[in-house]
């Protein structure tokens, strides 16, 4: 009975994993086919990859995506960290009000955030042709909350008296911040930055409404594949994306497993000494 149950569990797990990876696998296979539209297999070729690399629109969109992600994640990390430090020393009432408004972009559907910013840009006259600026403002806006809420818990963990102690020992407020407070909350700042960067790279709905004349990768994929068949160069793009994400995740996880091992060994050493 127990054996049967465990068999059942494993086969169910296997089935769901298959469900998650079958589409990705098909995309990878289709990236090597000869035909232009990814419908049926028609013999092996690297054609999809060459047409992907030759496509100027794809390259433009990739550059836009990376520029917007880099700029918006850095700006939102600076603003978000400063606001979190300020918020932390605010009184309860006003802090609750600010935190509630800050949650709006996280709670709201992306679509609504996107259309609302589109209306704002039209009103204050940030024109469609300034697409890059529009994208950077929009992405910074939806990134700031994530940075604030990654930094705030770290501030709560650290002690307020550290800041005061630094000042008592002769630091200026600025020195106390840069030498004591910020190093203390660094893990929160870094995870906020990474989160902001990945969210920006992945965003589609908000970009679609605010992008104007600039296109990021998601917008480009959507505009080229929403209707009709799928060009195999997008299968090639999928395959490459899968490779990059897979390798990145593997590196991050191998590192954390390695760190765990090192920590465990050190613990052993300490124990054996005792």
């Amino acid at each position: 009975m127990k054996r049967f149950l465990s068999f059942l569990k494993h086969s169910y797990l296997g089935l769901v994993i298959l469900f998650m990876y079958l589409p990705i696998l098909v995309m990878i296979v289709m990236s090597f086919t000869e035909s232009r539209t990814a419908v049926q297999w028609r013999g092996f070729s690297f054609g999809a990859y060459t047409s992907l690399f030759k496509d100027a629109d794809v390259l433009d969109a990739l550059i836009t995506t990376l520029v917007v992600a880099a700029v918006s994640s850095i700006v939102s990390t600076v603003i978000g960290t400063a606001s979190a430090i300020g918020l932390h020393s605010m009184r309860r009432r006003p802090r609750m009000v600010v935190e509630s408004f800050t949650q709006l972009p996280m709670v709201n559907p992306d679509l609504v955030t996107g259309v609302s910013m589109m209306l704002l840009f039209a009103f204050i006259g940030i024109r469609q042709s300034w697409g890059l600026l529009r994208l950077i403002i929009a992405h910074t806006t939806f990134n700031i909350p994530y940075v604030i809420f990654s930094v705030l818990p770290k501030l709560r963990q650290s002690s307020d008296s550290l800041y005061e102690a630094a000042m008592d020992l002769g630091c200026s407020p600025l020195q106390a911040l840069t030498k004591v407070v910020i190093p203390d909350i660094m893990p929160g700042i870094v995870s906020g930055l990474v989160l902001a960067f990945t969210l920006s790279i992945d965003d589609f709905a908000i970009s679609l409404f605010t992008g104007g004349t600039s296109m990021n990768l998601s917008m480009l994929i959507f505009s080229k594949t929403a209707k009709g068949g799928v060009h195999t160069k997008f299968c090639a793009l999928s395959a490459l994306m899968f490779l990059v994400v897979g390798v990145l995740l593997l590196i991050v996880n191998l590192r954390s497993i390695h760190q765990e091992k090192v920590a465990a060994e050190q613990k052993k050493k300490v124990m054996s000494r005792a």
Partner: protein
Amino acid sequence: MKRVILSYPYVFVWMPLFIIAPMLFVLYYAFFRDGQFTLEYVQNVVANDTYLGAFWNSLWIALATTVICLLMGYPIAYILSQMKKRTAALVSLLFILPMWMNMLLRTLAWKVLLFDGGVFQQILSFFGAGNVQLIYTPGAVLLATVYDFLPFMILPIYTTLQKLDRSLIEAAHDLGANGAQTFTKVVLPQSVPGIISGITMVFVPAMSTFAVSTMLGGKQVMLLGQVIEEKFLAGTDSVLGIGSTLSLVLIILVIVSMVIMNRIDKDNSASGGTLW
């Protein structure tokens, strides 16, 4: 220098300008025409069959997606939580990886699979099912939303199950509970916070999705998000009014679902403590 000042640029400039003002614009466009208050758009939306149809489509697809993801995802989270720590970390990585892929590319994969003459149709016709229409059907949209959002259901539930105190389960066994009783009386209630956050992480984006339905549903399966997208990218003022009203409908739905979730999740209120 008081540290509070550091938050002033955000609190007094960025937040009012880029978070609060845009929402007020949505309200304004939904209820005003040429500076005059009007209920025209609201009446328009309520009376129009296209919008109502899109609303019901969105609602049932989002609900169905949530239920299927929960039924499919809970067992996975449970199985993961029972594995050895290192194996579980590796297997859960398999569910995290697709989340890092661009969602449009993941949806695109289903378009390739379901397209006329594509892999699934070939398999079906091999078994003699003839040419069944797969793409541009509600089923195609549902399949892709389940696929896209399943990891968002599994991971929060897995996280809460992981934190579950093992001694509680042992205590239940010692006190004479069988497997099913232990699950329904101990494990399930303890995992409610994970289920709640899973449901919100699936329902809200599923309710407002338009990329999936445009790519896989075409004009045959219109969702609310798709109608809003068309209105806003068309761009004239009266169209913006309707689009804004529909956006409000979406916001209200999200608020209602969150209120319901908060009611169910009273124990978890300690982590909230904000206005909504």
